[in-house]
């Protein structure tokens, strides 16, 4: 029955897929336009745009790791506490013990990996539900960061470390009004995107795979290019591209590549989709689960460093509640709570949906009370629309 349905309109399925895939992006644009209008253009002012990126970078970075964890069929509730703990560790090493920022950063990343490994060990090899293991981790690392800081705030960090969050890429052209390097970098990225998309398309047609209609392909990518160039133009007219944006973009591209193009990514989806079938097909399911947690630990450590550098101090309260934003970002971005489904770009968009709402509502002066209510409802609505569409399909 399905055969006749799809052979009649060969493009219908593709367009529908694209609509679902870009639905999130369209909602992000809609939300941004809404706040842009409501805040009389404050939202997209270069200064605010820069802030928006800085404020959300650590959520985005963790969402990359969380997406893998969720796709593999697990959850990690401890990431907020790990952010706090790593920040505390970094502060103790750099401020109290005067370590140089390079070895201190490396030590923090290793600590993150070990934390992930410890939790992943219980989840993967002892089959304790990840909800429980990481709930325990949440308490443990919250407590450990309190202990490490002895209840005090520790700071400030050395200047070179602060650049991680507050630095911008250097401008070789000394542009006064416009950071030319940043704009060029944006244009370069846009160009790279076009090349990559064209290659993908020629690969598809060469193998007679279904490809989207040509006009749609052109229109879609022109919109993307326009957005990237406009975005870097805006940023270039302030201080240029923040260092964090570069880190974030590289990580994003890396994880997008890993999930969509590599064998390890494919195996994670298979693991989350049907663990038994994956195992019987020769996938090392236990080790794979383990590594997704190690990866999550490292990314939580990166986020912890970025956050500590941004605040320029480590406080016992740092990271509280981050896990909720990160998990929400993944689900808003279309990940499935039962595993096997989800996209890196979706999670990133989800993180920005949350971020833009936080930022926009703050500008509008909406209290923290109703901000939470609205964010909760948006999360529910996003998942509802997803499930509703799936049921109709």
């Amino acid at each position: 029955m399905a055969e006749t349905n799809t052979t009649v309109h060969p493009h219908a399925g593709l367009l529908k897929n694209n609509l679902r895939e870009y639905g999130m992006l369209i909602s992000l644009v809609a939300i941004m336009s809404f706040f842009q209008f409501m805040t009389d253009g404050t939202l997209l002012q270069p200064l605010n745009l820069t802030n928006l990126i800085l404020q959300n970078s650590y959520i985005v970075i963790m969402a990359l790791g969380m997406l893998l964890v969720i796709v593999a069929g697990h959850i990690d509730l401890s990431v907020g506490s790990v952010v706090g703990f790593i920040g505390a560790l970094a502060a103790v090493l750099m401020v109290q013990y005067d370590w140089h920022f390079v070895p201190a950063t490396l030590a923090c990343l290793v600590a993150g990996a070990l934390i992930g490994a410890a939790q992943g060990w219980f989840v993967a090899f002892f089959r304790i539900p990840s909800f429980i293991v990481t709930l325990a981790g949440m308490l443990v690392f919250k407590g450990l960061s309190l202990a490490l800081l002895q209840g005090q705030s520790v700071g400030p960090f050395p200047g070179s470390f602060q650049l991680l969050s507050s630095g911008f890429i250097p401008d070789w052209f000394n542009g006064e009004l416009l950071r030319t390097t940043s704009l060029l970098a944006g244009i370069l990225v846009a160009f790279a995107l076009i090349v990559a998309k064209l290659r993908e398309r020629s690969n598809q047609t060469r193998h007679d795979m279904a490809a989207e209609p040509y006009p749609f392909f052109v229109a879609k990518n022109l919109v993307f290019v326009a957005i990237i160039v406009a975005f870097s133009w805006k940023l270039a007219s302030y201080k240029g591209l923040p260092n964090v944006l570069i880190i974030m973009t590289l990580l994003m591209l890396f994880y997008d590549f890993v999930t969509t193009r590599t064998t390890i990514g494919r195996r994670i989806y298979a693991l989350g989709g049907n663990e038994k079938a994956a195992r019987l097909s020769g996938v090392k399911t236990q080790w794979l689960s383990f590594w997704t947690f190690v990866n999550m630990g490292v990314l939580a450590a990166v986020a912890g460093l970025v956050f500590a550098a941004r605040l320029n101090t480590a406080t016992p309260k740092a990271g509280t509640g981050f896990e909720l934003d990160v998990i929400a970002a993944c689900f808003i971005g279309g990940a499935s709570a039962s595993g096997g489904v989800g996209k890196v770009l979706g999670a990133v968009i989800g993180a920005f949906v949350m971020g833009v709402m936080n930022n926009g509502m703050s500008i509008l002066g909406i209290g923290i009370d109703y901000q939470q209510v609205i964010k909760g409802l948006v999360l529910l609505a996003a998942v509802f629309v997803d499930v509703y569409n799936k049921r109709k399909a």
Partner: protein
Amino acid sequence: MTLLEMRGITKRFHGVTALSDVNLAVRAGEIHAVVGENGAGKSTLMKVLSGVFPHGDYEGEIRFEGQERRFAGIADSEHAGIIIIHQELALVPLLSIAENIFLGNEPARFGVIDWFAAHAQTQALLRKVGLNEHPGALITDLGVGKQQLVEIAKALSKAVKLLILDEPTASLNETDSDALLALLMELKTQGIACILISHKLNEIAKVADTITVIRDGSTVRSFDCCNEAISEDQVIRAMVGREMADRYPKRTPEIGETVFEIRDWRVHHPEHADRLVVKGVNLHARRGEIVGIAGLIGAGRTELAMSVFGRSYGRRISGEVKLHGRVVDVSTIQKAIGVGIAYVTEDRKGYGLVLEDDIQHNISLANLGAVSHAAVIDEGREFKVASEYRQKLRIRCASVSQPVVNLSGGNQQKVVLAKWLFANPEVLILDEPTRGIDVGAKFEIYTLMVELAAAGKCVVMISSEMPELLGLCDRIYVMNEGRFVGEFDRAEASQEKIMRSIVTAAAA
């Protein structure tokens, strides 16, 4: 007297016609078999009847006990006395028999359950269906056969007039199947009519009064078994719409040297570590040979196969696996695949497929290395490989980028087979490869097995359907309670001999 009449039922899904002008008439107190290939529309028809598709969602008329009925949902049809028992049983595993039987229908006063009444009534119902279990026993502790009986008891508790059973014996062994069929005959004498959906024509021949054949969404014909003798071939011809000269492909086996050997294989139960499940089995298979393993369900055949395949079942496993006379390491699934062993599971949805994922991704999963360079997947190559298998195995789909969940059982099975063929094994172990798939797809899978053997592979087939073992295999082992209790060559094997070796082993 006619109990149920469905007239001119037409049902469309998004413009695709699933049923067109189907007629079905069930007489009071008869067993009415509905047969057809997978995807013919049997389940859709039953969903129309039971109100899963409410009135207005389909065209046509349903008359039950002489009145026109317009069911708005399952509750409506159950109220009228039509109860459907699905293939996947709808019991809560960790609740007791009594709790399950009265689930949603508890004998209660002001919301407080009267457990004495519930247990007493359960006891009476269990006696009726011939199940000797305590009403407090948990469902999870019962075998599938007994669970089936609990479902029927549950139906009886609701004053059933028409019982619909969807593939009730698909996962039952022969003893349990026979008991179930006897129960249906017994219910018939009490005036309860029954619609039986099944692929097992021999069982239908035993109990059915009428057989209705559905093909491509239409009723093809109805056979009245009371007045004339109906042969299986007649029914099959109506089902597939073509002459089925031979149910098994012809072959001239060319058997070479011994390739695959299992020596003194012992496996313990994964939870009860001192229970021996496979008790010292020796098996060999030669190049180009199709070897069968017969036996009842629970004989340990799946456990044997899975434990050999990278210890994916059991604990404290001992014994040797040899390929070409050399002992090979099969201690993990990766190693077993590496030396050239493939295991095609009996449970394709649970253990064989990532259902939500594409056909192409499922096919490449066991051999991703062959479609990637340095861990980066070449999607073009993957698509090409999948398309080749689609053509070779005649997988019916719109495109290999389609999720497997929407395919019919036979086509899903072909995807699982394609996955393992792509892994290019020397020894292919097939566990119930034709379970729950239609006659046409069965023949295609048999043909494929014959081709594999002709190409010099060893094919080991586990099956509970003796005719297919006898029709295909060069040699058949008989397994019972963890042991091989018989071995027959093609020439000497027969259903009676196999059954006898099981029975005498059980008695010994």
